[in-house]
């Protein structure tokens, strides 16, 4: 067992190739499918297959700098395909495979919106989506020029010339060239494309791998979707470029059978995983005892919570439930980061208990950090997101971006060696958040004894089960539902302690008056949410002119949310979920 040492590599491909040469038979990726024998990629097999994909992609007309969207279900060929795109200097971008509930028009609309900024050139997908996507691509409504189905290809019939050409292209890739494109947040057209260079990724792997004290016996297990930065960078790129193994589970299978994570971890001796907070509650509450019996969690050295606000109660539940399966003390850890810095900014060090502070909630709301004492009326537990990883900086700023002193609460601004250069094709948005080398995150937090605490967000973004959702996206679609008064809808995130995440709530004005009509309208609102693949949990219906407007003339989300949650207004219609 020895600590990973990161040698210089010119590009990510060169890093993968160097690892494959040094450890050809080491497992790079274990592709896990419930109830089946896992498919195992060694570093050698993986890079050879990736090279075959590069050559085929070249033969299909893919060129350096083409942005290639991959829309694919859990498939063992995803990994070499992704690497094959990189291997000819093109830029992979993973998009979510459309859930069957997502209306095909909304899916196409989302893709169309995304192409505006991301500039997608090619869609790489599987044959199931041909009938949905082909007419859209052929209509010329977007930047997409081509749609490819690589799972149908014979990888063994490329010409020698094509191999030589692909190799030549690869050798001309520079460290500063784009490596990948990932989307920072949002649901449809509002997603922000972040492009990261080979250098940024290599730097990040070194800085984050060092902070995690990765060693050659580490193995990452993950069910995280690969269109999300935590899945893509944390569970796929970081292990692959560190020469360690990752075990990849299907997201959809895990959510239906959460014990799969422990089963895979136990069978494969996994040591690390990343989870959003809701997963701690889901696993602690829903894994049946008879299914987890026999699993051994003693190999885990870090289970890292990130992607949504970290809740102390979720950690407590998880530890209480799973300690008897040999979960070591201090295994739980935390991370704070964002796609704009590649993934991580701060990390709780290995083996260190997570710090928690009990503070005065009222003072916190006023922008001051004050530890709670006996006289404190309302307290709040804040969970630390650890210390800065190497080559990063952080400051807390006020509304005018002036740096605040040590005991202040404010917006978190960050610098990192692996910071992005800006959102693709979106200079206005870039200008809003990137200034003088600092990225202004929109997150609110404070620093106490060198540890970072994130307590909220400046904007109204909703984080449901680790996924960032803009309320505007939901409001737009609910506004189209008959019997809703146009423009009189507010969407907001509502804390759900049982699930350990925010759920999506809607408050909408209507002229309807009877309980039966309200119930039908609620159903239509839920269906409208389903059409954009958003799960609406709570529907509050209110009479005309109930919603309070902000100075801009739009219903004010925060104020109206507070009125709803106060729960003392008899004019609100609400049906509690079972």
């Amino acid at each position: 067992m020895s600590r990973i040492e990161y040698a210089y590599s010119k590009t990510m491909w060169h890093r993968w190739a160097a690892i494959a040469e040094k450890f050809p038979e080491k497992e790079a990726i274990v592709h896990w499918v419930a109830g089946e024998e896992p498919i195992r990629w060694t570093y050698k097999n993986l890079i050879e297959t990736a090279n075959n994909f590069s050559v085929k992609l070249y033969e299909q007309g893919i060129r350096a700098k083409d942005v290639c969207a991959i829309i694919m279900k859990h498939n063992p060929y995803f990994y070499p395909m992704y690497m094959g795109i990189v291997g000819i200097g093109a830029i992979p971008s993973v998009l979510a495979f459309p859930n069957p509930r997502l209306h095909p028009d909304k899916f196409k609309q989302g893709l169309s919106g995304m192409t505006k900024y991301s500039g997608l050139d090619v869609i790489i997908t599987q044959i199931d989506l041909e009938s949905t996507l082909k007419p859209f691509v052929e209509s010329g409504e977007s930047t997409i020029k081509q749609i490819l189905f690589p799972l149908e290809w014979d990888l063994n019939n490329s010409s020698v010339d094509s191999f030589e050409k692909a190799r030549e292209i690869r050798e001309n890739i520079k460290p500063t060239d784009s490596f990948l494109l990932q989307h920072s947040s949002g649901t449809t057209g509002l997603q922000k494309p972040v492009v990261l260079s080979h250098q940024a990724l290599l730097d990040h792997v070194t800085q984050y791998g060092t902070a995690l004290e990765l060693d050659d016996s580490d193995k990452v297990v993950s069910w995280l979707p690969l269109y999300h930065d935590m899945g893509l960078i944390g569970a796929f790129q970081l292990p692959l470029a560190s020469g360690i193994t990752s075990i990849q589970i299907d997201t959809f299978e895990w959510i239906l059978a959460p014990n799969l994570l422990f089963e895979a971890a136990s069978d494969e001796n996994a040591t690390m995983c990343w989870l959003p907070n809701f997963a701690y509650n889901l696993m602690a509450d829903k894994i049946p005892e008879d299914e987890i019996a026999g699993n051994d969690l003693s190999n885990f050295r870090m289970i890292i919570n990130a992607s949504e606000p970290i809740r102390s109660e979720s950690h407590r539940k998880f530890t209480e439930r799973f300690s008897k399966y040999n979960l070591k003390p201090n295994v739980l850890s935390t991370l704070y980061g964002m796609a704009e810095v590649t993934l991580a900014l701060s990390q709780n060090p290995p083996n260190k208990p997570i710090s928690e502070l009990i503070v005065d909630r009222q003072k916190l709301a006023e922008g001051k950090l004050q530890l709670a004492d006996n006289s404190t009326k309302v307290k709040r537990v804040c969970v630390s997101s650890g210390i800065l990883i190497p080559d990063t900086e952080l400051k807390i700023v006020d509304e005018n971006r002036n740096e605040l002193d040590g005991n202040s609460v404010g917006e978190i601004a960050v610098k990192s060696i692996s910071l992005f250069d800006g959102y693709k094709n979106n200079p206005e948005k870039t200008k809003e958040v990137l200034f003088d080398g600092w990225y202004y995150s929109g997150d609110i937090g404070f620093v106490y004894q060198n540890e970072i605490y994130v307590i909220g967000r400046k904007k109204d973004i909703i984080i449901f089960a680790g996924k960032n959702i803009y309320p505007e996206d939901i409001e737009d679609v609910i506004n189209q539902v008959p019997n809703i008064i146009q423009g009189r809808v507010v969407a907001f995130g509502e804390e759900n302690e049982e699930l350990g995440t925010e759920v999506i709530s809607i408050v909408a004005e209507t002229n309807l008056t009877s309980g039966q009509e309200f119930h039908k309208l609620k159903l239509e609102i839920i269906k409208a949410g389903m059409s954009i693949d958003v799960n609406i949990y709570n529907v509050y219906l209110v009479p005309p002119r109930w919603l309070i407007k902000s100075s801009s003339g739009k219903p004010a989300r925060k104020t109206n949310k507070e009125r709803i949650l106060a729960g003392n207004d008899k004019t609100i219609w609400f049906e509690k979920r079972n």
Partner: protein
Amino acid sequence: MISERLHKIICSTLGLQEDEVEIKDDTLANQVPGWDSLNHVNVITAIEKDFAVRFKSIEVLKCKNVGDLQKLVDSKINK
């Protein structure tokens, strides 16, 4: 065919009225309002409780639609 009993349990768990949702053999869970991935476990638990049966996660995972779920219930109660 989906039994009246299964239809009733699903609707009751999701807070739906029985006459407002049609559930057929080929209906997918995520086509039923409110039957999302986080709520799935609640639906399954309610079915297990009502029929006094126990499913393994892997058995539920292999159900592609409500018709498969009905078959799974039938196979358990006919044991």
